[in-house]
Protein backbone atom coordinates (compact mmCIF):
# COMPACT_ATOMS: atom_id res chain seq x y z
CA UNK A 1 0.00 0.00 0.00
CA UNK A 2 2.88 2.39 0.83
CA UNK A 3 4.39 1.79 -2.60
CA UNK A 4 1.10 2.68 -4.22
CA UNK A 5 0.91 5.94 -2.26
CA UNK A 6 4.45 6.82 -3.35
CA UNK A 7 3.69 6.14 -7.03
CA UNK A 8 0.44 8.11 -6.82
CA UNK A 9 2.25 11.07 -5.23
CA UNK A 10 4.94 10.94 -7.90
CA UNK A 11 2.26 10.81 -10.61
CA UNK A 12 0.63 13.96 -9.20
CA UNK A 13 4.00 15.77 -9.08
CA UNK A 14 4.70 14.53 -12.63
CA UNK A 15 1.38 16.04 -13.72
CA UNK A 16 2.04 19.36 -11.97
CA UNK A 17 5.50 19.65 -13.53
CA UNK A 18 3.94 18.88 -16.91
CA UNK A 19 1.44 21.72 -16.44
CA UNK A 20 4.29 24.15 -15.71
CA UNK A 21 6.23 22.88 -18.75
CA UNK A 22 3.15 23.14 -20.94
CA UNK A 23 2.56 26.80 -20.08
CA UNK A 24 6.21 27.76 -20.30
CA UNK A 25 6.79 25.98 -23.61
CA UNK A 26 3.62 27.40 -25.15
CA UNK A 27 4.65 30.96 -24.20
CA UNK A 28 8.07 30.44 -25.76
CA UNK A 29 6.66 28.87 -28.93
CA UNK A 30 4.25 31.78 -29.38
CA UNK A 31 7.13 34.21 -28.87
CA UNK A 32 9.25 32.37 -31.47
CA UNK A 33 6.60 31.84 -34.16
CA UNK A 34 4.31 34.82 -33.64
CA UNK A 35 6.29 37.53 -31.85
CA UNK A 36 4.49 40.63 -30.60
CA UNK A 37 6.04 44.05 -30.20
CA UNK A 38 3.28 45.63 -28.12
CA UNK A 39 1.49 44.20 -25.10
CA UNK A 40 -1.79 45.97 -25.67
CA UNK A 41 -4.01 42.89 -25.39
CA UNK A 42 -4.05 39.56 -23.56
CA UNK A 43 -3.07 37.71 -26.75
CA UNK A 44 -0.17 40.03 -27.59
CA UNK A 45 1.03 39.92 -23.97
CA UNK A 46 0.97 36.11 -24.17
CA UNK A 47 3.12 36.25 -27.34
CA UNK A 48 5.30 39.13 -26.22
CA UNK A 49 7.48 37.31 -23.69
CA UNK A 50 11.29 37.18 -23.87
CA UNK A 51 11.55 33.63 -25.22
CA UNK A 52 15.22 33.09 -24.38
CA UNK A 53 14.50 33.44 -20.66
CA UNK A 54 12.37 30.27 -20.74
CA UNK A 55 15.01 27.95 -22.19
CA UNK A 56 16.86 26.68 -19.11
CA UNK A 57 13.63 26.37 -17.11
CA UNK A 58 12.05 24.37 -19.94
CA UNK A 59 15.04 22.04 -20.15
CA UNK A 60 14.99 21.42 -16.39
CA UNK A 61 11.22 20.91 -16.41
CA UNK A 62 11.43 18.53 -19.39
CA UNK A 63 14.16 16.42 -17.80
CA UNK A 64 12.58 16.31 -14.32
CA UNK A 65 9.11 15.58 -15.74
CA UNK A 66 10.65 12.84 -17.88
CA UNK A 67 12.51 11.34 -14.92
CA UNK A 68 9.33 11.26 -12.84
CA UNK A 69 7.50 9.73 -15.81
CA UNK A 70 10.24 7.09 -16.09
CA UNK A 71 9.71 6.14 -12.42
CA UNK A 72 5.90 6.06 -12.67
CA UNK A 73 6.21 4.08 -15.92
CA UNK A 74 6.96 0.97 -13.81
CA UNK A 75 3.51 1.13 -12.20
CA UNK A 76 1.95 1.76 -15.61
CA UNK A 77 3.63 -1.31 -17.09
CA UNK A 78 2.51 -3.57 -14.24
CA UNK A 79 -0.92 -2.19 -13.36
CA UNK A 80 -2.31 -0.19 -16.28
CA UNK A 81 -1.13 -1.67 -19.55
CA UNK A 82 -2.37 -5.21 -18.80
CA UNK A 83 -5.78 -3.68 -18.13
CA UNK A 84 -5.72 -1.71 -21.41
CA UNK A 85 -4.83 -4.91 -23.27
CA UNK A 86 -7.49 -7.04 -21.60
CA UNK A 87 -10.09 -4.32 -22.15
CA UNK A 88 -8.92 -4.04 -25.79
CA UNK A 89 -8.48 -0.27 -25.51
CA UNK A 90 -6.08 -0.27 -28.44
CA UNK A 91 -6.28 3.44 -29.31
CA UNK A 92 -5.49 4.47 -25.74
CA UNK A 93 -2.70 1.88 -25.55
CA UNK A 94 -1.22 3.01 -28.88
CA UNK A 95 -1.45 6.67 -27.87
CA UNK A 96 0.76 5.95 -24.86
CA UNK A 97 3.19 3.94 -27.02
CA UNK A 98 3.55 7.03 -29.23
CA UNK A 99 3.95 9.25 -26.17
CA UNK A 100 6.93 7.31 -24.86
CA UNK A 101 8.64 7.41 -28.28
CA UNK A 102 7.93 11.12 -28.86
CA UNK A 103 9.15 12.06 -25.37
CA UNK A 104 12.38 10.13 -25.96
CA UNK A 105 12.99 11.89 -29.30
CA UNK A 106 12.38 15.24 -27.59
CA UNK A 107 15.01 14.37 -25.00
CA UNK A 108 17.61 14.01 -27.75
CA UNK A 109 16.70 17.45 -29.11
CA UNK A 110 17.34 19.33 -25.86
CA UNK A 111 21.03 20.20 -26.53
CA UNK A 112 20.06 21.65 -29.93
CA UNK A 113 17.15 23.49 -28.32
CA UNK A 114 19.53 25.09 -25.82
CA UNK A 115 21.95 25.99 -28.64
CA UNK A 116 19.40 27.75 -30.89
CA UNK A 117 18.14 29.83 -27.94
CA UNK A 118 21.60 31.00 -26.78
CA UNK A 119 21.82 34.73 -26.15
CA UNK A 120 22.47 36.95 -27.97
CA UNK A 121 19.97 35.32 -30.31
CA UNK A 122 21.43 34.55 -33.74
CA UNK A 123 19.05 35.91 -36.42
CA UNK A 124 20.29 33.20 -38.83
CA UNK A 125 18.86 30.56 -36.47
CA UNK A 126 15.38 32.13 -36.24
CA UNK A 127 13.66 29.53 -38.43
CA UNK A 128 15.45 26.63 -36.68
CA UNK A 129 14.52 28.17 -33.33
CA UNK A 130 10.87 28.23 -34.35
CA UNK A 131 10.91 24.68 -35.73
CA UNK A 132 12.74 23.10 -32.77
CA UNK A 133 10.56 24.90 -30.22
CA UNK A 134 7.33 24.09 -32.06
CA UNK A 135 8.25 20.41 -32.29
CA UNK A 136 9.08 20.23 -28.58
CA UNK A 137 5.86 22.12 -27.82
CA UNK A 138 3.89 19.54 -29.83
CA UNK A 139 5.60 16.69 -27.94
CA UNK A 140 4.81 18.31 -24.59
CA UNK A 141 1.16 18.96 -25.50
CA UNK A 142 0.68 15.47 -26.94
CA UNK A 143 2.31 13.81 -23.92
CA UNK A 144 0.27 15.86 -21.49
CA UNK A 145 -3.06 15.12 -23.17
CA UNK A 146 -2.38 11.39 -23.52
CA UNK A 147 -1.26 11.15 -19.90
CA UNK A 148 -4.34 13.03 -18.77
CA UNK A 149 -6.74 10.86 -20.80
CA UNK A 150 -4.98 7.70 -19.65
CA UNK A 151 -5.29 8.76 -16.03
CA UNK A 152 -8.99 9.36 -16.59
CA UNK A 153 -9.38 5.91 -18.14
CA UNK A 154 -7.62 3.94 -15.44
CA UNK A 155 -5.46 5.86 -12.97
CA UNK A 156 -2.54 3.88 -11.59
CA UNK A 157 -4.31 1.45 -9.31
CA UNK A 158 -7.98 1.76 -10.29
CA UNK A 159 -10.31 -1.18 -9.91
Amino acid sequence: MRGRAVFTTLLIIHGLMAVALLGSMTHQTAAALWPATSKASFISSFRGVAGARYTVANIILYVVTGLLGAVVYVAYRLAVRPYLESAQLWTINGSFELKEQFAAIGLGMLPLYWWVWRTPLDPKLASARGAVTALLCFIVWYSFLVGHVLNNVRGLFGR
Partner: protein
Amino acid sequence: MSYTRVFPLFAAAFAVVYVLSVEGNWALVTYHPRINEWEWLTRPAKSGPPMYWYGWLATSFLAASAISLVALPLTRRWQPPVWIGWAVPLAVMLVFVYLLRSFFLR
Protein backbone atom coordinates in the same frame (compact mmCIF):
# COMPACT_ATOMS: atom_id res chain seq x y z
CA MET B 1 32.05 26.82 -27.92
CA SER B 2 33.10 24.57 -30.77
CA TYR B 3 31.49 21.35 -29.53
CA THR B 4 28.02 22.93 -29.88
CA ARG B 5 28.37 22.67 -33.68
CA VAL B 6 27.53 18.95 -33.46
CA PHE B 7 24.23 19.45 -31.62
CA PRO B 8 22.11 19.24 -34.81
CA LEU B 9 23.92 16.00 -35.63
CA PHE B 10 23.37 14.69 -32.09
CA ALA B 11 19.60 15.33 -32.30
CA ALA B 12 19.37 13.60 -35.68
CA ALA B 13 21.57 10.66 -34.66
CA PHE B 14 19.69 10.19 -31.40
CA ALA B 15 16.34 9.98 -33.22
CA VAL B 16 17.61 7.56 -35.89
CA VAL B 17 19.41 5.29 -33.41
CA TYR B 18 16.36 5.37 -31.16
CA VAL B 19 13.96 4.12 -33.84
CA LEU B 20 16.50 1.45 -34.84
CA SER B 21 16.87 0.43 -31.17
CA VAL B 22 13.11 0.10 -30.77
CA GLU B 23 12.68 -1.86 -33.99
CA GLY B 24 15.73 -4.09 -33.42
CA ASN B 25 15.23 -4.16 -29.64
CA TRP B 26 18.81 -3.07 -28.99
CA ALA B 27 18.43 -2.26 -25.32
CA LEU B 28 21.58 -1.57 -23.31
CA VAL B 29 19.74 -2.68 -20.19
CA THR B 30 16.57 -4.62 -19.41
CA TYR B 31 14.49 -3.99 -16.32
CA HIS B 32 12.24 -6.64 -14.78
CA PRO B 33 9.81 -4.55 -12.70
CA ARG B 34 8.04 -7.46 -11.01
CA ILE B 35 11.26 -8.67 -9.37
CA ASN B 36 13.04 -5.27 -9.41
CA GLU B 37 16.03 -6.61 -11.33
CA TRP B 38 18.28 -4.96 -13.93
CA GLU B 39 20.26 -6.87 -16.53
CA TRP B 40 22.71 -5.77 -19.20
CA LEU B 41 21.53 -5.90 -22.83
CA THR B 42 18.25 -7.29 -24.11
CA ARG B 43 16.94 -10.15 -22.01
CA PRO B 44 13.69 -12.13 -22.26
CA ALA B 45 10.91 -11.96 -19.67
CA LYS B 46 11.67 -13.62 -16.33
CA SER B 47 8.72 -12.91 -14.10
CA GLY B 48 6.22 -10.44 -15.49
CA PRO B 49 6.85 -8.15 -18.45
CA PRO B 50 10.40 -6.87 -19.12
CA MET B 51 10.92 -3.13 -19.77
CA TYR B 52 13.29 -2.10 -22.56
CA TRP B 53 12.53 1.64 -22.84
CA TYR B 54 15.32 2.64 -20.43
CA GLY B 55 17.73 0.49 -22.40
CA TRP B 56 16.70 2.01 -25.75
CA LEU B 57 17.30 5.48 -24.30
CA ALA B 58 20.73 4.47 -23.01
CA THR B 59 21.68 2.90 -26.36
CA SER B 60 20.57 6.02 -28.24
CA PHE B 61 22.40 8.39 -25.89
CA LEU B 62 25.66 6.45 -26.11
CA ALA B 63 25.50 5.96 -29.89
CA ALA B 64 24.54 9.60 -30.60
CA SER B 65 27.34 10.79 -28.30
CA ALA B 66 29.85 8.54 -30.07
CA ILE B 67 28.70 9.70 -33.53
CA SER B 68 28.92 13.34 -32.43
CA LEU B 69 32.38 12.81 -30.96
CA VAL B 70 33.65 11.20 -34.17
CA ALA B 71 32.11 13.97 -36.27
CA LEU B 72 33.47 16.79 -34.08
CA PRO B 73 36.84 17.18 -35.92
CA LEU B 74 35.00 17.22 -39.26
CA THR B 75 32.82 20.14 -38.16
CA ARG B 76 35.86 22.46 -38.19
CA ARG B 77 35.51 22.47 -41.97
CA TRP B 78 31.88 21.40 -42.37
CA GLN B 79 29.05 22.72 -40.26
CA PRO B 80 26.14 20.22 -40.13
CA PRO B 81 22.98 22.00 -41.36
CA VAL B 82 20.81 22.99 -38.41
CA TRP B 83 17.63 21.74 -40.07
CA ILE B 84 18.69 18.09 -39.69
CA GLY B 85 18.31 18.58 -35.93
CA TRP B 86 14.54 19.03 -36.22
CA ALA B 87 13.65 17.55 -39.64
CA VAL B 88 15.13 14.10 -38.88
CA PRO B 89 13.41 13.82 -35.45
CA LEU B 90 10.15 14.94 -37.10
CA ALA B 91 10.57 12.26 -39.77
CA VAL B 92 11.30 9.64 -37.10
CA MET B 93 8.13 10.65 -35.25
CA LEU B 94 6.15 10.05 -38.45
CA VAL B 95 7.90 6.67 -38.84
CA PHE B 96 6.69 5.77 -35.33
CA VAL B 97 3.12 6.75 -36.26
CA TYR B 98 3.42 4.36 -39.21
CA LEU B 99 5.01 1.57 -37.15
CA LEU B 100 2.33 1.82 -34.46
CA ARG B 101 -0.58 2.24 -36.89
CA SER B 102 -2.05 -1.17 -36.01
CA PHE B 103 -3.12 0.20 -32.62
CA PHE B 104 -5.34 2.76 -34.35
CA LEU B 105 -6.66 0.66 -37.25
CA ARG B 106 -8.30 -2.19 -35.36
